[in-house]
């Protein structure tokens, strides 16, 4: 396959950055998109050029580290996958592929396609846990959790923190990410003790980090590799109002 890549290159946070063009001739359909980038990078090394910096780790769609905007879509043209799960067979010979980093004020570019997503960690820091220490747990089956509750908590908990929701959202809202975490814990009996504090503090931190507000375009749930539903955001709003009234 012959592919023309148009890739965002930016030396550092202060650099202005620009799209640069690279043509690669010897790609195959079996390659994953990231392997195509690996391949391009090896060619760049041999040409004595600096490689394109991009993030990746597990390469099986679970760690959430990879993620770039490909041809105008977070994680590429296919719905609900990660960048590492995208394969070159989804493109045609001769295609031009635009590759850009996640764009959001709260995700500043570090270099090329790598952005800083530590804002997510700080949201987590503000309540995405249950405040009990190791060693103080009661017997696991002492507190039965109905299957439906466990399942809905699991649906929300499956978020891998890749940031595609923020990247694709026109407002760079982190509502899907934050709500998934809140609903995971607040749905479970273990999370009840801190439910109001959790929702208030995590949503407040979301604003402090500079994420925009949700306007329900629904783009996030289409790009989310874990199919997390936008209904979570509505649920978070309900919880926040409840917390404001009762908390």
């Amino acid at each position, binding site marked *: 396959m012959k592919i023309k890549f148009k890739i965002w290159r930016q030396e550092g946070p202060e650099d202005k950055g620009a799209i640069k063009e690279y043509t690669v001739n010897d790609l195959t359909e079996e390659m994953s998109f990231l*392997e195509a980038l690996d391949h391009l990078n090896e060619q760049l090394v041999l040409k004595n050029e600096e490689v394109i910096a991009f993030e990746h780790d597990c390469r099986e769609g679970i*760690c959430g580290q990879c993620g770039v905007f490909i041809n105008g879509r977070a994680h590429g043209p296919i719905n609900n996958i990660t960048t590492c799960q995208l394969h070159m067979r989804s493109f045609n010979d001769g295609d031009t592929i635009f590759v850009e980093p996640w764009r959001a004020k709260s995700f500043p570019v570090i*270099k090329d396609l790598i952005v800083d*997503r530590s804002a997510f960690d700080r949201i987590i820091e503000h309540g995405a846990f249950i*405040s009990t220490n190791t060693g103080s*747990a009661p017997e696991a089956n002492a507190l039965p959790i109905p299957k439906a509750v466990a399942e809905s908590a699991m649906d929300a*908990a499956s978020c891998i923190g890749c940031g595609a929701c923020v990247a694709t959202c026109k407002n760079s809202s982190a509502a899907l990410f934050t709500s998934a975490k809140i609903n995971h814990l607040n749905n479970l009996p273990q999370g009840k003790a801190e439910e109001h504090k959790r929702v208030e503090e995590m949503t407040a931190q979301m604003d402090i980090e500079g994420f925009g507000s949700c306007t329900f375009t629904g783009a996030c749930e289409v790009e989310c590799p874990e199919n997390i539903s936008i209904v979570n955001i509505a649920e978070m709003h309900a919880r926040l109002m409840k917390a404001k009234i009762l908390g």
Partner: protein
Amino acid sequence: MTLDSKIPEGKLEDKWSNYQLNSQLINPANKKKLNIIVVGSGLAGAGAASTLAELGYDVQCFCYQDSARRAHSVAAQGGINAAKNYQHDGDSVYRMFYDTLKGGDFRSREANTYRLAQLSAPLIDHFVQQGVPFAREYGGTLVNRSFGGVQVQRTFYARGQTGQQLLLAAYSQLYKMVRAKKVKMYPRHEMLDLVVIEGKAKGIITRDLVTGELKRFAADAVVLATGGYSRVFRLSTLAVGCNGSAIWKAHKKGAFFAAPSFTQIHPTALPQTSEAQSKLTLMSESLRNDGRIWVPKQKGDPRKANDIPEEDRDYYLERRYPSFGNLAPRDIASRAAKERIDAGYGCGKLNNAVYLDFKTAIDKLGLETIKDRYGNLFSMYQKITGIDAYKEPMQISPAAHFSMGGLWVDYELMTSIPGLYAIGECNFSDHGANRLGANSLLQASIDGYFILPNTINNYLASEMKVDRPDTSHPEFEKSELETSQHIDKLLAINGSKTVGHFHRVLGKVMWQECAMSRNRSGLEKAIVQIKAIRDQFWSDVKITGGKDELNTELEKALRLADFIELGILMCMDALEREESCGAHFREEFQTEDGEAVRKDQNFSYVSAWEFEKGNFKLHKEELFFEFVKPSIRSYK
């Protein structure tokens, strides 16, 4: 130096409590003054860092990823074992201990393995309390399923995401302590050297992966939780960034490396499809519950799988192991697949795979049942390969997976360097020569949450009296200088081949000679070849970009330089162990029908290698079986 495993006195079931009774304690006011470095933020690292911080220690935690949540613990799909006996099927701590010891082919310590089983039940309590959404029955109690080669149901799971969910719990707990200012978290920092002062681990040198700056960190104890090293094979089920550098640097500073050749090859991964492939994705072992494995009877059969009639298919596992069939343990299933592929019966584009067929199961149980059981795995398979496995068989292939080997640790999880601990996959402790499915999450968590926080005090109590060295200490100077020179040397080579090229070459040698089956001449040849690769690497590698910036090529080169050296040691260890046990299969030591021959009289020990001026010196820790009698594994 003699290896003291420090196994406590007493009956098997009393050893851990006896240990705790006799270990020294530190009062809370003093804990604040003690600083502990934890390298790695997976289940072991995050569990340890958060628990140590809760106990009052001052903790610094490091990871190379952008966030602690990325650690490769996330990738474990299947589940976590615990001897809860919720299913009322006769499970017990003892049975779990025995299964683990036997699964590891009697190459681990009884006391360690028993403790693993003993602490498994409270661990489930802990994770439930932390909000892990484990699968539940309608009545609200926890569900269990069975897993590879055991006869009870003791595996707890959270859909296909058990590892992810456990890590998220650990990560949240860690960030709770970050916010409480008890843990200082350093993401995008890679440990490049260990600082040893007066024989004790006192700090590390890291490289800030964003700025390239080398930094010094001092502490009263250093804990390594850096995971497995199977990326030495390049193609593996591990994350691309997983590496052995931290433990290798520790090894070079004096920590013994135990059983490096014990690496597990997983039978159900997706096959390699191109030279450029970077990773072999694991498909959960649970697929073997209903899938049948076969290859064509005719070499290089050009027909499509569905066009090959029953009589032309060879269900080789069912043929060779009639009683376990497709559920034979990992090492056996992997080896059998390799045997068929090597003999020329492999399928797929590169003739490197075997079929995993669900047709019989779908006919028997119905499509809906199979969808219900494996839906997420089938859709994952389709995402990666584009193939609908409900309609045609999956193609699978063995892939390098878990490393049982790692830094040698005693019962306290301390390495042979005082003050240096190794926890989780990066140590050699509980799995022996082969790890059972769903035991890796368990070991990582137990090491981090329960064991280390209860043993480190025994060392730190005496360190209370010693002043923590300052980072201006000459040893820090020296370590940083050496690291900096190492980097300069790499960048100065400016050769003609990429880092990726050398990794592919190394991976091929390792896969060919030091993976599923090994033999003397192959291993001897491999050592020569790897040494040649090392020389070529150091004279001809090309790395672009500088050291004072984010440079992914430099990161890869630094990791590969260590992998090459580790590869040599792995081959040496495999060569030295003249028996077949667990994942280590020496072709010279097999029965007439191809089964492993273990030699307990000569090899019932843990090999522990010491780095001595560029050479490796073998020490042996004899294994004593006081409570069980090693038996021969048979899955016929």
